[in-house]
């Protein structure tokens, strides 16, 4: 049996403003449905990221980010090093805003603030609450940056499976009883988002 994967919730008390940490639960369950065990580990030290298989960097308030900067000054350098090493991460909303320049080397593009549901050209749906004009979904190496805040993988399970495959956690993702039921609900959720 393959070893259990370790999925990191990085500063979960700080970076879970819109329920972002739920994305780890989605990955854990979908991995388990493929026969791959995974555990979620809370981490409040960025220096040890290399020891883990996956990192979620969620969305936080300005006060939360200021606190992380104070208690973990190397936070951004450590996360960038981890992502550039080719390991997988999901980087959400304000974390995307704060990491995009360091990762891509270009200045963050902004627009006037928008709060709305959006649908990407690939059909992914989520809520934007940002002044960023960066790509809504951006793949960099094996990591996914998203402006869609909160539990983006709940609404978009296909994106979760793509992240699992790109991370090399399993060779293929097969449908099963649980995923069929849940994916049907996710389809309904995406449809409803635009009816309000």
């Amino acid at each position, binding site marked *: 049996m393959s070893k259990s994967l370790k999925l990191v919730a990085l500063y979960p008390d700080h970076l*879970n403003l819109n*329920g972002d940490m739920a994305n780890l639960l989605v990955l854990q369950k979908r991995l388990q449905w493929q026969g791959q065990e995974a555990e979620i580990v809370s981490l409040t030290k960025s220096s040890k990221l290399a020891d883990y298989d996956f990192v979620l960097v969620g969305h936080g*308030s*300005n006060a939360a980010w200021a606190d992380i900067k104070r208690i973990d000054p190397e936070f951004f350098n450590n996360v960038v090093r981890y992502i550039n090493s080719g390991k997988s991460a999901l980087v959400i909303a304000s974390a995307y805003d704060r990491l995009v320049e360091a990762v891509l080397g270009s200045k963050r593009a902004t627009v006037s603030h928008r709060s709305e549901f959006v649908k990407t050209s690939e059909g992914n749906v989520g809520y934007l*609450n940002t002044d960023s004009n960066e790509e809504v979904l951006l793949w960099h190496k094996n990591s996914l940056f998203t402006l869609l805040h909160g539990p983006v993988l709940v609404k978009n399970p296909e994106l979760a499976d793509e992240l699992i495959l790109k991370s090399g956690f399993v060779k293929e993702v097969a449908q099963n009883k649980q995923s069929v039921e849940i994916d049907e*609900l*996710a389809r309904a959720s995406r449809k409803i988002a635009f009816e309000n």
Partner: protein
Amino acid sequence: MRYLPALLIGRLVRLAVRLVRPGGGSALPGLVLSKLAPKLVYRTLGSFEQGLVVVTGTAGKSTTTKMLVAIVRAHGLEVFTNPSTANIEQGFFSTIIKQGSLFGKVPGSIAIIEMDEGHAAQVVEKVQPKVSVILNVFEDQLDRFIDPALVREKLLAVAKATSGTVLLNADDQNCLLIGSELNQAQTKFFGITNKVSKAAKSKLNYAPTYLLELPAPAVSAEVVGLQERNVTALVAGKSVSFDLPSRGLHFALDAVAALASAQSILGEAFHLVKASKVLNELPPVFSRGEIREVNGEQVEFILVQNPPSMQLNLDNLAPKLDQVFFAIGRDVHDPSWMWTVDLANLKHVSVITGFNYADAALLLSYNEIPVDSVEADYFKAIDEFFKLPKPKNGIKTVIYSADSMRRLRRHMGFTDPEDVQRV
């Protein structure tokens, strides 16, 4: 006289709405009046002999306002207030249509108004409150407020606009930060002792400031004991005991906020025993732990509007409930926040429904909470739930968001928000 035509039109719109939807609330009359006579609400709120009292903050506004209004009325004052569903500007206009004369006069010597935290900052630019009660800042409605610090800024604006006393929650660092920017003689605090907070089933998780803790201020009213619904409080050094309308630490906090506020408003005339008697007899605000009879059996109705209200209400659910109805409606614009709530106390759900039924079902599915039925058709779901046989454990429990609450109450004919019994 200048507002007569606008108020007449507003009343006609209200009448028409009620003919089409008997007993149903609507924002339309208030919206129409706000367009025709935008300054009326400020003139009205500024017209009370004993001034305007604003109750605001993220959570607890409706219950605190209802408690405060009842205490002040028991002391003989005539109070103008708004229903809990009307805490934004359009709601104030609707309340004036409903309660005022055709000349815009509303009864009362004092106005005690529950105000949405975003709208309160706008209203106080035009009408100066005499007293403000600022309950808390939670991480809520971030699609609207973006960052909790912005909510704190709005509440600070309310506090700074207040001519008299500002009552603040001593246990919330956000309130202490607001207080630190005010004249100390102007502030009064209410709170809960650490011992009671630690022993409670639920925690009041205010929006963290991540700053060094500010020193705890002296409080004018404090919860010093809580056993189920029974509260022991110290108010200005005097001990008092009473039963809450519903169980929960948050309702105990609302009660001491109301006691401290009433004492500030009434001054020497405040009578603690009379105030506690009011709290002992007051029914809950509708759907805030309201228990009423439906088809010959008791049913509890619980409104969840945001992360703190869902968390606190789930934490305080009666144990081993057999039958729970869970409906998340159209008012929950972005359901992401539901994923910040710890669902450990929700063991089983009979029916999931509401406009956002799919998001609610996803939440419970991923958290492996057993669900008997997911029903997209809301009225079918309601009928299905109430046809279930009487539960073996506990009573039927309805957990719903505001839109689902309004639709269910209309469907079942519970249209009078004042028709709430204390059980």
